[in-house]
């Protein structure tokens, strides 16, 4: 017979898991759409004939001048999952137009592409150029989204023409190295070092995290990333190993050791708040209603996650202020929220982490899962 607390824990774990699964199934139904539907929407269906060549390529024929050439469908990997594009080439292979048919990118990043006329720059480019390279420069501040579109074009072209791709090489750079070093430092902090060594390690890791992960790469673990993984949108491991290191490192360490190394010493915004609290003399404040509030914080994160998953749009789960703080990206509301968060963080240590951050909810779920498993095994072995 299990203790009531263990029964309660299992109930929470199972109910949350079922809710997430139901949202994923609903989201998969929502995102169903066919290539023909997109073609008919874009071209005049009554005057154009669409002939499928393979899973990625269609041949156009018809009386209208734009009903010639080919249409390709390809997929790239963006910030929050796949970016699918449809593009039309004329009979000699020059791109006529590009339509992103499906993506989950954060609207502010995608808006940057429009502002820079990114899609227009690719028009009239010879499609054959995409065989070995991505010929148009990325948009600064929306690098991942712009690369995803070019990847999608390349993917559509190579698959449509059944050309072989180059062998892939893992892109391991400064960001990945920095993440590994930060996790290593984070784990060392939890070992039995002396107080002064731990303090030195912690502050070094926090400064490194703020500068490199925050200001240079703007790389964080956020809810939309987790939503993207749950919805089955896995970015290309060879191109984005940093994403796997961040998510894998954080979750595996939390599961195995029960320690939340990510929030404690890797998260750049957490580190920035600690630095702000040091400047303002902020103290960790725990009001009497803090425990009750945690349910609101976790419940809010779960609701947003379910909403994003059920709409098959992980980008909807993006309500963290990290991007706004480090690179001034995000909608005006997020930018507006960032200002009081920064000011309050001067006086309340880790205000965002304690009261709002949805990632805390994710780690709370993992912690609950781990502790419940251990508790159950301990009871079974008695």
């Amino acid at each position: 017979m299990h203790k009531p607390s263990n029964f309660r824990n299992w109930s929470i774990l199972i109910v949350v898991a079922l809710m997430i699964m139901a949202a994923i199934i609903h989201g998969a139904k929502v995102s169903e759409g066919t290539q023909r539907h997109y073609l008919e929407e874009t071209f005049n269906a009554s005057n154009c004939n669409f002939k499928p060549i393979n899973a990625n390529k269609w041949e156009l024929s018809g009386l209208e001048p734009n009903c010639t050439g080919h249409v390709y469908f390809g997929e790239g990997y963006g910030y929050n999952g796949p970016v699918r594009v449809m593009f039309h080439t004329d009979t000699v292979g020059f791109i006529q137009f590009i339509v992103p048919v499906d993506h989950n990118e954060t609207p502010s990043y995608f808006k940057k592409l429009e502002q820079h006329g990114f899609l227009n720059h690719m028009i009239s480019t010879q499609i054959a150029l995409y065989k070995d390279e991505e010929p148009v420069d990325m948009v600064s501040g929306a690098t991942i989204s712009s690369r995803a579109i070019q990847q999608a074009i390349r993917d559509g072209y190579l698959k449509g023409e059944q050309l072989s791709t180059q062998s892939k090489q893992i892109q391991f750079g400064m960001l990945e190295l920095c993440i590994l070093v930060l996790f290593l430092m984070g784990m060392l902090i939890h070992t039995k070092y002396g107080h002064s060594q731990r303090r030195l390690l912690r502050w070094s890791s926090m400064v490194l995290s703020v500068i490199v992960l925050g200001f240079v790469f703007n790389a964080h673990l956020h809810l939309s990333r987790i939503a993207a993984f749950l919805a089955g949108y896995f970015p290309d491991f060879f191109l984005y190993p940093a994403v796997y290191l961040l998510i894998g490192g954080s979750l595996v360490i939390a599961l195995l050791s029960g320690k939340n190394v990510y929030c404690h010493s890797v998260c750049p915004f957490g580190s920035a708040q600690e630095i702000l609290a040091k400047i303002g003399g902020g103290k960790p404040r725990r009001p009497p209603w803090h425990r009750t509030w945690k349910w609101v914080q976790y419940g809010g994160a779960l609701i947003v996650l379910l909403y994003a998953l059920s709409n098959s749009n992980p980008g909807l789960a993006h309500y963290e202020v990290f991007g706004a703080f480090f690179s001034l990206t995000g909608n005006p509301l997020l930018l507006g929220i960032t200002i009081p968060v920064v000011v309050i963080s001067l006086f309340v240590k880790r205000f965002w982490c304690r009261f709002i951050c949805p990632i805390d909810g994710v780690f709370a779920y993992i912690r609950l899962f781990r502790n419940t498993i251990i508790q159950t095994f301990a009871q079974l072995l008695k």
Partner: protein
Amino acid sequence: MFPYSTFLGPVFWMAMGAFVVIFFMGLAALLKDRQIPMNWWKWLLVVTWCIMLYIVVVGGFTLFGENETRAGLYFLGVFGTFMAVVGVALYRLLTK
């Protein structure tokens, strides 16, 4: 019109000058009342902070005046927040 008026323009700037003097006299009195010891470099930091804050406010509202409301809000938001952080750090330095 007001900014170019031969009478109201100078009066406005004289009033502004008087307000600045009153502000610093008030600040000196407040610091004395709170028993915060001041020296020349502390005053230099305070005046620098005040000038920077002034530039932020002027910059932001100039952008509003140029019908660049969004840019003005971003300017005030980013540099205003930065000035708030520097202000808190400065106050802690003065009271140390």
